[in-house]
């Protein structure tokens, strides 16, 4: 019996020993060897992340080129059914939900990197420039989101780490008020005597002076967005922005050149150069007409008619015909289905190219020129000098105090616009003399504010659209009403009889933030529609 007890004792103590020991190493076992913790991380790394995700939003393969490019009647496609029907005809394809959510996802992700970056440097005053630039990026993101969807989370956004998982949707007006105030206070904190961020993808490379100009240019853009809804605030901040110093030349442009080799593509081009879609995407009738009417030198660098036949038109290395007379734009709303809306019934139908098995029904319409646009590395603009000068032209036309006259700003803007195609590609270089001559012969007509607004904003539409910043073209068109566009009315439209004026909230919001989502929808009268209008567009 004694023996037995001893054995039990041994067993129990052995068991206790096994259990009690050796969880000491657990902390090191549970530390990810493939990533860093905050203590040994350089927050500068997150500036480039913010910029990449912002551009993934604005060039989104699953966004702008499929929606805004054709809503704004910059591009057109007569392929139906096709996912371009979302843009061309406001008819939903299977993935509309995901196209619709793309901008939301990428912009909030960009803003989240910006927020985290600011949090990481909170206790490091030496990195205040990084923090300030991150805030500017965050505001760039939030503006893009609210302009697209309307009331969206802002005051409580990005704070999941502080346990705010269900941010309320703020009224757009409040968002603008807050954004403008934040911009106003952060820009002056940028300080050239402090450390410069090391991972800036803009050509600024962290230059404080250029970031200040970028900040004020963003302020100008925000201010001008409010001309319809709150002209007084618009004026106040437009003047403040000008006084602070907006861009002074195309050398100040905020853009990135993509890096396909490292899997960073301009996703507009990712869509455009997709083999099958490539033959479908055309310049809209309005674009070609506008350029032709004014004999704009840009026509030659942006448009070409593919070589005859569907086989040649499919070759992405085969440049087309750039002659002035050959260029034809395609109106939206047509298909190739043999019915009333068949492209052959289009009033200005130029006819097909090729014949037999290579018959190309849409072969005579102009497409975005391969030389200018086909690269997956195609640069994308956040804001450029052409835009800021055109916005200042409008501010001046409205009589606000922005230094020069509307005509001067307009001429600056137009000059910058024509120079900007060279930023996208050397192919787009327009000779300085040609630009000077064209700008001189196409001054702002100042007969009335209305004509000035029409001319300025049509130019803004043409410039941003043909530089493939479709979202900005859409926002400014909704605000300004120029150019006058005729909506498509195609059966089964999700925006019947009207050009979409906002995007529906991502469908996931109904599940992930249901109460606040419903509140926002209720505020819009209970419907989350593409025909609804955001506050500044009322």
């Amino acid at each position, binding site marked *: 019996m004694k023996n037995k007890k001893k054995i039990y004792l041994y067993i129990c103590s052995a068991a206790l020993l096994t259990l009690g020991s050796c969880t000491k190493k657990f902390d090191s076992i549970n530390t990810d060897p493939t990533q860093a913790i905050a203590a040994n991380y350089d927050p500068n790394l997150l500036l480039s992340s913010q910029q990449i995700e912002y551009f993934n939003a604005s060039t989104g393969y699953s966004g702008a080129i499929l929606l805004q490019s054709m809503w704004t009647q910059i591009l057109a496609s007569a392929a139906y059914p096709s996912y371009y029907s979302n843009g061309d005809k406001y008819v939903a394809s299977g993935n509309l939900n995901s196209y619709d959510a793309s901008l939301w996802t990428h912009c909030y992700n960009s803003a989240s990197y910006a927020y985290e970056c600011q949090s990481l440097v909170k206790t490091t005053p030496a990195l205040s420039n990084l923090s300030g630039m991150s805030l500017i990026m965050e505001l760039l993101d939030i503006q893009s989101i609210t302009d697209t969807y309307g009331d969206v989370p802002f005051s409580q956004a990005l704070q999941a780490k502080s346990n705010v998982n269900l941010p309320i949707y703020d009224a757009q007006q409040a968002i603008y008020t807050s954004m403008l105030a934040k911009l106003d206070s952060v820009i002056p904190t940028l300080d050239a005597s402090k450390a410069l961020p090391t991972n800036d993808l803009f050509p600024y490379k962290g230059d404080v002076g250029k970031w200040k100009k970028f900040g004020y240019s963003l302020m100008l853009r925000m201010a001008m967005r409010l001309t319809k809804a709150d002209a007084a605030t618009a004026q106040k901040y437009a003047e403040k922005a000008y006084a602070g110093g907006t861009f002074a030349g195309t050398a100040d442009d905020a853009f990135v050149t993509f890096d396909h080799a490292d899997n960073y593509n301009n996703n507009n081009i990712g869509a455009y150069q997709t083999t099958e879609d490539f033959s479908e995407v055309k310049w809209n009738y309005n674009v070609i007409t506008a350029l032709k009417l004014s004999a704009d030198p840009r026509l030659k660098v942006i448009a070409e008619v593919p070589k005859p036949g569907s086989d040649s038109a499919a070759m992405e290395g085969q440049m087309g015909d750039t002659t002035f007379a050959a260029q034809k734009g395609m109106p939206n709303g047509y298909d190739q289905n043999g019915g009333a809306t068949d492209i052959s019934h289009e009033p200005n139908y130029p006819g097909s190219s090729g014949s037999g098995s290579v018959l190309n029904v849409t072969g005579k319409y102009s497409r975005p020129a391969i030389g200018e646009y086909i690269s997956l590395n195609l640069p994308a603009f956040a804001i450029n000098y052409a835009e800021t000068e055109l916005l200042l032209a409008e501010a001046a036309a409205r009589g606000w105090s922005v230094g020069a006259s509307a005509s001067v700003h307009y001429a600056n803007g137009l000059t910058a616009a024509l120079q900007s195609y060279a930023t996208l590609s050397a192919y787009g270089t327009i000779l300085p003399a040609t630009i000077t001559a064209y700008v001189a012969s196409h001054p702002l007509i100042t007969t009335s504010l209305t004509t000035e607004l029409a001319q300025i904003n049509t130019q803004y539409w043409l410039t941003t659209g043909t530089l493939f910043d479709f979202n900005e073209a859409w926002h400014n068109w909704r605000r300004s009403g120029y150019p006058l566009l005729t909506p498509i009315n195609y059966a089964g439209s999700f925006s019947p009889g009207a050009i979409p004026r906002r995007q529906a909230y991502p469908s*996931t919001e109904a599940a992930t933030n249901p109460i606040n989502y419903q509140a926002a929808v209720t505020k819009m009268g209970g419907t989350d529609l593409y025909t609804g209008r955001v506050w500044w567009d009322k």
Partner: protein
Amino acid sequence: MHLIAIRRLMPLRQKLSLTAMRVVKLIAIIMLGTCLQASAGVFSPNITFSGKNVSLEKVFSAIYKQSGYLVFCDYSLIKEAKKVNIHVHDAAVTVVLDECMKDQGLAYEIVDKTIVIERKKVTVAEEAAPVPPPIDVHGRITNEKGEPVPGATVSVKGSSKVVATNDNGEFTLPGVDANAVLVVTSIGYERTEFNVAGQTTLSLQLKVGAASMGELVVTALGISKEERKLGYAVTTVGGDQLNKARETNVALSLGGQVAGLTVHGANGGPGSSARILVRGMPSMNSGGSPLFIINGIPMDNSQRGAAGEWGGSDNGDGIGNINPDDIETMTVLKGQAASALYGARASNGVIIITTKTSKKGQALIEYNVNGQWDKAANYTDYQYQYGQGLEGVKPSTAAGALATNRFAWGSKLDGSSTIQYNGQNYAYSPFKDNIKNFYRVGPSLTNTISVGQGNDRGNFRLSVSNLDNSSIVRNSGIDRKTINLNATQKITDRLSATVFANYVDEQDRNRPQLSDGPGDPNNFQFLSPNVDERIFQPGQDAKGNEIVFSDDNYVTNPWFVVRNFINNTGRKRLITAVSAKYNFTDWLYAMGRVGYDYENDRIFQVTPTGTNYSFNSAGQSGQLNGLTTLTTSELNVDGLIGVSHKITDDLHFDATLGANERKNNYEYLQLNGSNFIIPFLYTPKNTLTFGRQYYFYQKEIHSGYYSVDLNYKDWLLLTTTGRYDAFSTLPSNNRGIFTPSVSGGFVFSHFLQNTALNFGKLRAAYAQTSGEPIGGPNNTNSGVYQTATYYGSSNPFNGTPVGTINGANGDVQNNLPILPNLYLKPFTLTEIEFGTELKFFNSRLGIDADYFARKTKNEIMKPTLSESSGYNSTYVGTGSTQNRGVEVQLTGAPVKGKFFSWNIAFNITHVTNKILHTDQFNNNITEGAYRPLNANTAFITGMSGPQIIAYDYTYDAKGNKIVDASGLPVASNKLTPFGGVLPTTYGGMRNDFTFGNINFGFLIDYNYGNKILSATSYYTIYRGLNKMTLAGREGGITTGVDASGNANTKSATAQDYYQRLAGISRNSVQDGDYIKLRQVTLGYTFTGKTLGNIPLFEAISVNLVGRNLFYISKKAQNIDPESNFASSVQYAGIEGTSLPSARTFGINANFKFKK
């Protein structure tokens, strides 16, 4: 405590019921066990008594009077006892008692002041009793037909002596107590006890056990127990149910066979993974898979890649690697009490695989060949009245035809000559053979040779197997080689060692992409009714470039896919276990075991040159989707000590105390790149752009556990277990968890005699298990690295570094961060179970029924967050799931004769699942979506999960559907629940007939109460293939009311109307109920006489088999209701663009060679 004293009042006791007496006696005996030693040698007063031929009652009365010693016993013992002559003066109580007990066959014990009298036990060598000299016993064991039973185990009760019978059923046991009791067990027979009673030559007969009564089942830790002794439900499925009509994934063969279990696979071709759910959906996020234990060691059953709404292929799971020929049994431990010893991994139940070994005294040479043929089943029922086209018009140009190959909105099929995409003309008439023509008959051949031998000192079995399988999809299939060794050797009488090794080399060729369009070979399912898929051959031009077949080039031409796409997954896997057991004494042993499961996978995925959507502007195409190597390993080191002790002859005590250390490692390395520079050369150095991925994790779990079994006379059984787990994946302040279980069985039939009920047991159990944390790199669900925010770097952007935050993929794009959580702890699952096991009419009828109620607490949820919160998901420990249900298993032998017998096994389970709590806000937790993306599944508080949520119509106050200005119905902007995707009532019925040497069996299974989210429904409605789209083809559809309630007058065309309906995703929800004829086998066994003059074989059995044959009833239209593109719980009940399910026919032949 109340002791019944024997005094003058004695007769009163007779009024007490027998049962009450037994209970009291039990209590008294327990007291004895604890106090006996302590009371030995205590001084006691002496007795003076004198009497001739007096009853014991009188003597005891005197003892009580003189000493105060109370006598306690079963009254009948004293009544039956002989009268005694006693003359003592001032003698010790023991002297008096010794005198009384002489030649009475009684024994006594003194505890404190109580004398307990009992019948003397024959098996116990009492020092006082004369021991007859040991004898050598020779015996022969036969069955009821008089045939010898080889390999039966004969043990001497109460000793460690065990032998096995030889081929003639004979055994020899030297040196056995003449009064010994022999216990004979053999699988398939009832456990039987025989009294030796001095005989040296025995002839013993065993009864065939109709069910598992008395059979040993393997329980947790690999300990065999008699099923009758368990306080919880387990079900064992024999290997013969798995290896005649086979599935390439053996887990699928369990479907319909076990109450409480559902098994469904993904329609991803051979080797696809299985969804195995025990008792409902155990928890929301654990993936559902039970823990698989093979010969005592855990084996990995993780999913190696699955399809989702964005495509992907099913790359199989872990259990699918196991060769069914090597499986002796699969035992499903359903209740938590059964699996509690596995602690944190047991919440989904445990399935124990025991591989075949050789039986003692047997040599074995066996060859098995199995040939099966898979054929695609066509469940579509499309309309064949209208052909391709749009808005009622058939195409008139080649381009128009290309754009409408998948749109059946054209004109009436009239046989007219109509242009196709290739410019040629074809008859505009119905064509129905696309599935039949495109998918081939896929043969599958398995060859297995096994050899083995067993003797007194050990046994081994070695098998080598080859599976050569071809999928119904061309150029796709599996090649699997398995080597299996199972060896046990007694090194000394005390020390034995066991080695188990299972090596698998599985190469899967071209696992098909599912669900989404790119690379998916299954899109000919949605061709217009007049389009013959053969016109799209060969799918490529002379340069090898894909010829697009439809309006969408992201829907790859299936002919191009099967010719060119590469998706090879290879796995080399070694599962080993080495254990040693040392018996210190006959009641104490120690065991050490090292188990290692090592998987080395190589995955090669190529989007080939020429794939239309992959071209860049320079005309380069293709993509190396990945050349991946990954290794997964799990090491388990166990040490345990077992005690088997008799407290008294009637009360047995078994205890185990053990500790486990587990280490998991995972390493994933991938190279990828896009656009091949040299066409058709698929190697990582030949791409324009490069990518690489690297994931790594390791974790450790340290555990200690105990198990105690108490068994009183085989009719009252009590087991308790406990386990403590400490996890490296949890924060240091919250690292461990203890989970207990207790279960009991009461064999009430012990007290019944001469009734039809020959065995009856009630059982009850309470148990808690826990679940591990979730989350980890590359969706491994390993739980690692979730307690801190990590920062990383991504590909540089034009040379500028790029940072990331907690990105699961370390990619800045499309990869929002996951919010860490510092307060994680393992979740717990608590279960109460009540059951009964009844056997009637000599076990001809058996009922095994259980009620269970289980609930999880603190489930770690990964709710999707609104991206506006800055993170896309987080971890919170707030989930709770409840499952309540009843499971019943009936077994019957309606006919049991020498020539003809008929066995039935029927099971039914009803489970109600309910999500009690989701994340901290009780939000819906989004699960999977189907490819049209306008509906998904989710966990919703208060409903069963996962629940389909889809868009409904909008209705006015009167319930009329509201239409818009175009006359088209308007979808609601809210997702509405339309039912759960997991069945609530399910089960199966097996019938087995034997006519002499002929056997015939079939299995039917059924499934009720679930819904399906069907992309096929969406596509067939959207594309005009569905029969519902016939209404309104001519003249349009005018229906519904406008927003103000006025009847709509605007007519919509059929195309516009039904395409809108497709968008209203409630129209994609189908009913999943079915009854299916799952399996049929018909066989003949040639033995002895029937084998005739063939000298080589001892037996040959040949079976014709069929699996997944047809639905006896189903409700879903156009689809197989079991169809899934992924097997995970996340995508359960979601269907679309996967392989058609296959019917399998085959032949299995088994040759047993003569030794």
